[in-house]
């Protein structure tokens, strides 16, 4: 077993911390991160609770392989009820924070209640303190520095929220290690609602209880060699996910100007080639690549903004390097808002990290605001004097900062696109599902993606299924439901182990099962896949109890009615209803999306229904 067998509880209302043994039966059934965390959440809250109330619970969960020598072993997940979607909130991050929490001796950190004053949590193995957060009101980066000074430990690992999370922005995230984020579902807003500024953790206990160390190390050597030799992996190391931008542009699935179009005329100014090409002034955006804990891929980008760029001129604090453009940030600050200025995109990436904003949700919300501006609904008078025109790099930079700091019109953008478009009378302009904004793939050009967006338990998400190869082959809805369902199960299991889903392409599912077996004992691929299916249905159960129905497995009318205007999928719309019928059948769910009794029984979930 590679669990630490210990859960740290913090009750901020009672100002009390204690630890309990891990529920081993749940660990066997739900493994870790989003699976195990959701099981604890189901036990601790009523799913119909107000997500911003003290009754909501915020869980920081690792997996059994987190903090081991497997490649990509740095993953952790924030779990709570989401204030963005009112469904299960589940946001996965890398960096070094998750492994450090494990090294401190904990599988999960469970935060309940609400502090009377702003606090941060200090964890040094068994020494756990709730401390006053004098750094409340500061950015993630400032708070990181302040805590580092206060605890006088350069190796402390910190997860924090910025002003957006403090002020309840529903697209606020939790940023750890300065530029990795548990980005989605507004988990930062829940942390802010608890008056919890940060969690600072130092662990010196390590992970040492691998079931079969010799076999585990042998497997690791073999699997890492295979990953190293993989051509796809080599491309990922060199270009990061950023390379997806030119692929989507060529394919015609690159959401542009709030999903009205699927190809962006400025794509080559902001793609991975542009990032490594020197400008006329000799500036190169991409500095190097960077790994999360344990990762032998290292897809992370480290970039610099041209110091002469308008966004950072005379602001030397932005002249040093930080987390740069990956595909989703490039999409969300580029095509979907029509901006082709790579320095502006990079500035938006820096400040969304600095102030703790989900870049996808922010970009798509700004895109909706820009379409509202075009319709005359949001004139400059209502948006702090800034013309929210598609393509305006100034609007992007100014609004990213305002939203991060929860200032002016930024407060409205911080509510997310669903609430913004409803407020201004055009709910049809919200591009997302269950209240969460779409990632950078068009649901008409890629119908498997459309089904994945609609059925994702945490709201629209591109990372909970993997139908890319089928979607790239043809634009129809045929044969998309089965791989969508199957890969949702597989990815649920992969996530739960504590490894990164990005290694899923370079090591097989059997490899994951073998690593789980060597580390924890008693695992094979069939059991792991069934566990993934159980986790998916557990999250679904949470949503059903929270009051969600088939109507929430939806896509905006633009995806269902407006044909793709250009590219290889020209003429397509997403045939969601047909896909949903097929998908529910495959899942063993009823047509109204409730779970059939025999499915619950097969997955051992009857007691929770």
């Amino acid at each position, binding site marked *: 077993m590679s669990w630490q067998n210990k859960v740290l509880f913090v009750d901020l209302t009672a100002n009390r911390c204690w630890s309990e043994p891990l529920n081993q039966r749940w660990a066997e059934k739900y493994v870790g991160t989003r699976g195990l965390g959701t099981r604890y959440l189901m036990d601790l809250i009523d799913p119909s609770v107000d997500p911003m109330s003290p009754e909501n619970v915020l869980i920081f969960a690792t997996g059994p392989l987190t903090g081991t020598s497997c490649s990509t072993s740095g993953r952790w997940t924030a779990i709570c009820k989401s204030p963005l979607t009112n469904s299960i909130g589940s946001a996965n991050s890398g960096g070094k924070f998750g492994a450090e929490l494990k*090294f401190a001796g904990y599988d999960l950190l469970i935060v309940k209640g609400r502090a009377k004053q702003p606090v941060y949590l200090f964890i040094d193995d068994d020494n756990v303190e709730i401390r006053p957060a004098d750094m409340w009101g500061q950015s993630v980066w400032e708070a990181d520095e302040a805590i580092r000074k206060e605890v006088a430990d350069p190796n402390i690992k910190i997860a924090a929220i910025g002003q957006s999370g403090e002020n309840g922005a529903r697209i606020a995230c939790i940023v750890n290690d300065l530029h990795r984020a548990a980005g989605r579902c507004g988990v930062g807003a829940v942390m802010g609602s608890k008056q919890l500024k940060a969690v600072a953790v130092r*662990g010196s206990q*390590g992970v040492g209880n691998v079931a079969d160390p010799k076999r585990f190390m042998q497997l690791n050597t073999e699997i890492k060699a295979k990953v190293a030799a993989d051509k796809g992996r080599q491309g990922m190391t060199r270009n990061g996910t950023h390379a997806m931008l030119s692929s989507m542009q060529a394919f015609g699935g690159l959401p542009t100007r709030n999903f009205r179009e699927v190809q962006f005329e400025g794509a080559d100014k902001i793609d991975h080639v542009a990032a490594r090409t020197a400008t006329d002034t000799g500036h190169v955006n991409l500095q190097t*690549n960077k790994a999360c804990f344990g990762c032998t891929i290292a897809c*992370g980008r*480290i970039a610099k903004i041209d110091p002469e760029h308008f966004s950072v001129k005379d602001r030397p604090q932005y002249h040093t390097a930080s987390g740069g453009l990956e595909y989703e940030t490039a999409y969300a600050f580029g095509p979907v808002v029509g901006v082709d200025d790579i320095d502006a995109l990079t500035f938006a990436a820096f400040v969304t990290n600095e102030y703790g904003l989900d870049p996808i949700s922010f970009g798509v919300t700004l895109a909706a605001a820009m379409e509202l501006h075009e319709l005359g609904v949001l004139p400059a008078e209502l948006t702090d004097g800034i013309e929210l025109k598609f393509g305006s790099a100034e609007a992007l930079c100014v609004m990213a900062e305002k939203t991060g700091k929860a200032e002016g019109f930024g407060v409205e953008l911080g509510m997310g696109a669903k609430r913004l478009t409803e407020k201004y009378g055009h709910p049809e302009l919200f591009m997302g599902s269950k209240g969460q904004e779409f990632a950078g793939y068009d649901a008409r050009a890629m119908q498997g993606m459309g089904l994945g967006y609609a059925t994702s338990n945490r709201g629209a998400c591109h990372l909970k299924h993997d139908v890319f190869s089928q979607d790239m082959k043809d634009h129809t809805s045929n044969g998309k439901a089965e791989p969508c369902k199957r890969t949702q199960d597989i990815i649920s299991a992969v996530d739960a182990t504590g490894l990164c889903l990005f290694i899923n392409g370079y090591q097989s599912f059997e490899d994951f099962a073998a690593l789980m077996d060597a580390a924890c004992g008693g695992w094979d691929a069939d059991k792991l896949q069934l566990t993934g299916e159980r986790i998916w249905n557990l999250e679904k159960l949470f949503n059903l109890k929270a009051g969600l129905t088939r109507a929430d497995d939806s896509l905006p009318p633009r995806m269902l009615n407006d044909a793709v205007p250009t590219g290889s999928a020209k003429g397509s719309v997403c045939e969601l209803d047909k896909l949903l019928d097929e998908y529910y059948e495959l899942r063993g769910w009823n047509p109204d999306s409730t779970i059939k009794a025999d499915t619950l029984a097969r997955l051992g979930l009857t007691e929770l229904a």
Partner: protein
Amino acid sequence: MKALVMQPDKCTSCLQCEMACTFEHEGVFNPARSRIKVFEFEHGALNVPYACTQCEEAWCLHACPTNAITINDATGAKVVNDDKCVGCKVCTIACPYGTINYRPETGKVAKCDLCDGNPACVEACPTGAITYQ
């Protein structure tokens, strides 16, 4: 004599070296106890792996009052002999690089011993940032 050679421009700060080091020496994955450390600068734009340089004129060795630090003739590594170390920490003061450290849990010091000529960190490094040559 071969030495650990670090190339910071190749390091991604994945810490596989730190895990390999602690697994080799202590059977756990525990960067806090690693004898090789990666230091990050400027939000990770520069990552520098760092371990004992195995100084020819080894001050830790000379400072030790119990002769607990000896030279492995095959590798040149300065090696702490646990049965002789009394945990007085004089070596940690003598070392100019801070690469020999006291361990409260054992009451002794620990440092890089080049894994008897087959350094685990080198094998674990995915980018060739640490080599033994």
